């Protein structure tokens, strides 16, 4: 985030959102999680 010019970058939430998906992907073996993150453009 800093490299892209943002400040105050923060992952606020993580979700186990891939549990029991109808068609599981091989990507799940890498510990895939959903996240919500925020940041701000400097003034």
């Amino acid at each position, binding site marked *: 985030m800093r490299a892209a010019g943002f400040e105050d970058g923060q992952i606020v*939430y993580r979700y186990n959102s891939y549990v029991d998906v109808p068609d599981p992907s091989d990507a799940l073996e890498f510990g895939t999680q959903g996240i919500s993150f925020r940041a701000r453009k400097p003034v």
Partner: protein
Amino acid sequence: MSTHHVPKISQAELRVEIKKEYANVALDPTKGYHFHTGRRLAGILGYDEALYAGVPEANIASFAGTGNPFALGPINPGETVVDIGSGAGFDSLIASRLVGPAGRVIGFDMTDEMLKKARAGAAAMGAANVEFREGLAEALPLPDDFADVVISNGVLNMMLDKAATLAEWRRILKPGGRLQVGDILVEREVPADALDDISLWTG
């Protein structure tokens, strides 16, 4: 996905596969994907049902985000919001209610079937403050310092050059503007052969 390995795929190739996948999500949201969709997914991601009361069922059904931009901070009346990769319009339609008639929401997507569904949803809601345009996440047809808030949900992980994409999102934000994004992370190192597997990028 992040590693020093440069994937042997191009964004153009990836774009073709993403369009195929998300056209299916628009047309047949309950088919069964690598991810949950619709109301069940919204529940997993902590969306308050009151937020999307009034959003047409078809637009809810094709929701396929990875996080919850609305849990990260308020969207205020009168603000300008840009939704990057707006899909069937679920988040944009929520944002349109939050910004109210004095605000404005622009959703960008590259999948025709999603754009059609999102526009139909806005029309059904009578939402005159939201529009859906064709556009790419890495090259947005907007001026600098345009938006109060940029939201996106499940898009950044499908971009090969994440730093450049984030820089583009920063460009369109006003100084002090907020980025509120749903995405994914992986807890373990992704091997090079997996990074070259285009199917793992789209689902």
